[in-house]
């Protein structure tokens, strides 16, 4: 089982006031400018949408995090520090002045963001932190930041204990390279630089809930990829081949595919429909090389003496890049070039930030498209719903069905008094018409010349939901008013 990873959530804690008062130290001369001065405190006010009442403004909150100057008016931090932000303020070390800032780029899949301040002048003389490489195992690094427990800069030293591919908990759906250190990364540390020999070797970003003194940092390959991706002014996400592979360890398996027992080649077990490989790679092709690197029977490659998953080649690529695959199909050696593109459908399984939840309400019936946020809010247990969620990508459901529309709530009214049992089910049809998007159901429910009854059929439902159109039209404004629903729909 994988340990629960929590992003180091920002927290506004009252400052500790019980420390013993000491005589004020004599003021020293103005200290020399050090690279620590380029580590800034980020104060964020957030507004997080509430998926259970999507028409409401959501929860107001906030917290602190850390960022650091990496270029002309460019501050790097974690995506989770500035997600769902309404206001971002940056404070210099040793100053109490708050400088309004804004998010330039945010990458939720690798938990990184780039900020700029409205007026860079006060920061213009600070050194820009330089990037280093991969720290060695057992070497010492320092995490600089503004963690809980005080207002001033804090330095935490740790030893690099592991370099591994691990889940990034911010999006709940992505794994990338991670450096593990034996020092705790505490709330507020997030987004701060991790330094070795005066160079940045990573960004502190998450801790481990079950173990003390374990911190995780985002290493340079991931940071570098992010900065390169946004260089054109847009973040394109990580790329994915859309292939599932299966190891070819079994001698019988190798014999069936007429392969030598040389430990080479991995089986394509599934080509995700709609992915860039669809139509080019087929199930039961045997992948031999990726961009010239030989693939072994477990799907691993060797690059510069390092043993890596073949997907790491794809990790470092950008939209529009080409991957060359060579493979065996029915004994024949073939080669294909795959042009990489982002695959938005796969984000159904990732937590979304900074977007208004989509919904439509009609006559007390609340409809929302199924995604990770909705699942996290409602904890659905309907079997059909769970299966449709699972199959959305792997069976290619998304190709014909943009949204899986769920009746999430039934608001109380005389019209809906027998309908509460339908909440949590997936809409298949409205008035006999298959529902493929939220917009479609919105339009059908608001059509000008409705049939006598609105009938809604559910996936695996024991009966249709039926309401007379005239009564529903009359109930719609009444229920909106009673329940305090300020907007009837957000469709885009």
């Amino acid at each position: 089982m994988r340990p629960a990873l929590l992003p180091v959530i920002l927290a506004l804690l009252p400052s500790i006031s019980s420390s013993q008062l000491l005589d004020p130290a004599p003021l020293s001369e103005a200290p020399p400018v050090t690279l620590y001065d380029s580590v800034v405190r980020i104060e964020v006010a957030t507004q997080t949408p509430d998926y259970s009442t999507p028409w409401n403004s959501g929860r107001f909150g906030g917290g602190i995090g850390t960022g650091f100057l990496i270029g002309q008016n460019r501050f790097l931090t974690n995506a989770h520090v500035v997600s769902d932000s309404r206001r971002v303020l940056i404070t210099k070390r040793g100053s109490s002045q708050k400088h309004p800032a804004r998010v330039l780029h945010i990458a939720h899949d690798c938990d990184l963001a780039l900020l700029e301040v409205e007026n860079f002048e006060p920061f213009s003389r600070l050194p820009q932190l330089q990037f280093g490489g991969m720290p060695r195992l057992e070497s010492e690094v320092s995490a600089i930041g503004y963690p809980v427990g005080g207002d001033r800069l804090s330095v935490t030293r740790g030893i690099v204990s592991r370099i591994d591919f691990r889940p990034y908990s911010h999006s709940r759906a992505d794994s990338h390279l991670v450096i593990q250190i034996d020092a705790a990364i505490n709330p507020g540390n997030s987004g701060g630089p991790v330094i070795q020999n005066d160079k940045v070797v990573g960004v502190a970003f998450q801790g481990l809930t079950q173990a003390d003194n374990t911190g995780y940092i985002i290493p340079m390959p991931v940071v570098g990829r992010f900065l390169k991706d946004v260089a054109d002014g847009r973040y394109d996400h990580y790329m994915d081949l859309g292939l599932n592979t299966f190891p070819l360890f079994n001698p019988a398996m190798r014999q069936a595919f007429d392969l030598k027992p040389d430990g080479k080649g991995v089986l394509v077990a599934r080509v995700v429909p709609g992915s860039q490989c669809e139509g080019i790679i087929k199930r039961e092709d045997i992948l031999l090389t990726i961009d010239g690197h030989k693939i072994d029977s477990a799907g691993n490659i060797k690059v510069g003496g390092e043993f890596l998953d073949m997907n790491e080649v794809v990790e470092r690529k950008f939209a529009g890049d080409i991957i060359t695959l060579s493979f065996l199909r029915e004994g024949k050696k073939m080669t294909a070039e795959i042009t990489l593109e982002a695959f938005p459908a796969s984000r159904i399984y990732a937590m979304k930030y900074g977007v208004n939840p989509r919904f439509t309400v009609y006559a007390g019936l609340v409809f929302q498209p199924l995604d990770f946020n909705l699942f996290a809010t409602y904890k659905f247990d309907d079997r059909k719903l769970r299966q449709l969620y699972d199959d959305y990508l792997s069976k290619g459901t998304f190709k014909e069905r943009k949204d899986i529309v769920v009746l999430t709530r039934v608001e109380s009214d005389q019209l809906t008094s027998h309908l509460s049992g339908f909440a949590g089910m997936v809409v298949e049809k409205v008035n006999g018409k298959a529902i493929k998007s939220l917009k479609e159901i919105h339009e059908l429910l608001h059509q000008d010349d409705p049939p006598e009854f609105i009938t809604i059929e559910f996936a695996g439902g024991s009966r249709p939901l039926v309401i007379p159109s005239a009564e529903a039209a009359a109930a719609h404004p009444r229920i909106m008013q009673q329940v305090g629903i300020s907007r009837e729909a957000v469709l885009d």
Partner: protein
Amino acid sequence: MNFPLLTLSLLLASTLLASAEISHSVVRVNSTLQGYSSSQPWEKTSPRKRRGLGTLLSGSRVLTTSQMVADNIYLELESADSSETVPAKVIAVDYDANLALIAPIADAGFLSKMTPASLGSPAKSGDDLTILQLENNGSSQETQGIIRSMELLSTFVSGRYFLCYEVKASMQTEGNSFTLPAFRKGKLIGLLTSYNAKDQICDILSVDILSAFLEDAENGSYEGFPSLGVGFSTTEDPYFREWLKIPSGEGGLYINRVLPKSSAGLAGITKGDVLLSIDGNKIDRKGYYQHPLYGTLYWTHLVKGSRKMGESVAAIILRDGEVQDLQMTLQRPAESLIERYLFDKAPPYLIKGGLVFQELSLPYLKAFGKDWATRAPMNLLDVLSNPEDYEGGLRRIVVLTRVIPTDATIGYERMSNQIVKAVNGQPITDLAELNETLAKHPANGLHEIETDDIPYRIYLDQTLANRVDQQFKASGLPSLSRIHPVK
């Protein structure tokens, strides 16, 4: 909460006078129950003992509940004073109705000295009855109770409802009381299946069900209770009723599923029909009808409990707003794709080279724990929810449940709970067929196994698999397969 009566403590606050007549027909029933492991079906789980009471009927037969005999490996009858015992066997059992008829295997002197009980006439709400318990010293203890209501309850297998009395009675929760007989006017009127000490409410299986069971068992071949084979929704929602065009004076149940080859299916009832009445008894919008003697009862008693297999019943349905009369010949629905229970049946399995195959059953799914309905694998749960999607030609769903690491299964170790579609190109309809297919020599010495999940097709070296199987045998696995013959 209801729970079976188990040994708590012997609290003799008051001793009621024993009635000689009824206690003379009561014996102790002792059983040792032992089922099979779900994950390692070649192994048995640890045995449990259960003690209850049975009632002697004519012909040396003893009536008790089926939960006393489910998965039994040893069954015996014991005299009230515990001085004599005799081994016994099951003559007829109905796990749905929770009834079992058992008989001694050998001559038992103590039984011949007892007086067989006979069944009483139907009781109704307000009637009194006497629940009988036996104390350790053999003396009987009687508790008087009043039937508070008549309800359809499932007393053993979930989802199977039969007519029961709900009786208010203040009982001492004695030991040895998994099943207790209830009498009225000196005759057996029911079997107590559970007692809620907090509310002092007992559930007692009614004499109606007892007599139907005994009548069926009379000729030696037990058939069971019939059912319509439909899934239904209630029609309380006024807009739903308007849409279905149900007249205002009617109740009705909306039929949402009809099992093929069931009483309803063969009579032409289809999804979307509204069932209005059975044998002239109007069914209300919540599914209840008015029984002339018992009052408000759930509609399923009109079939399951009131009528016998093969009988004809008259139904009135509403189809597209039109009233129609139908005649149904009652039967039991065809055996379902997924067995609901495996009592007394060793679960079939097959091990080949380390691949473990089993037939999908409800007990297998329930072994995924308390939250099995959400925690069990989605592909297997889908078969349970939508069996009609899988039924085409299949008798059973064969599942590659797990992979034991062996030389033949290198690389397959993480596969589990995949539905087997075909082997060596041959569609697999049950475990017996899989067994036959794997016994044949495959084309190039490799068995090709197709499943419903990644990697969808694996290969097994026949020679290697056979060698691994021999090693399994040598290492103490009792048998590599348990295949039930195809019916």
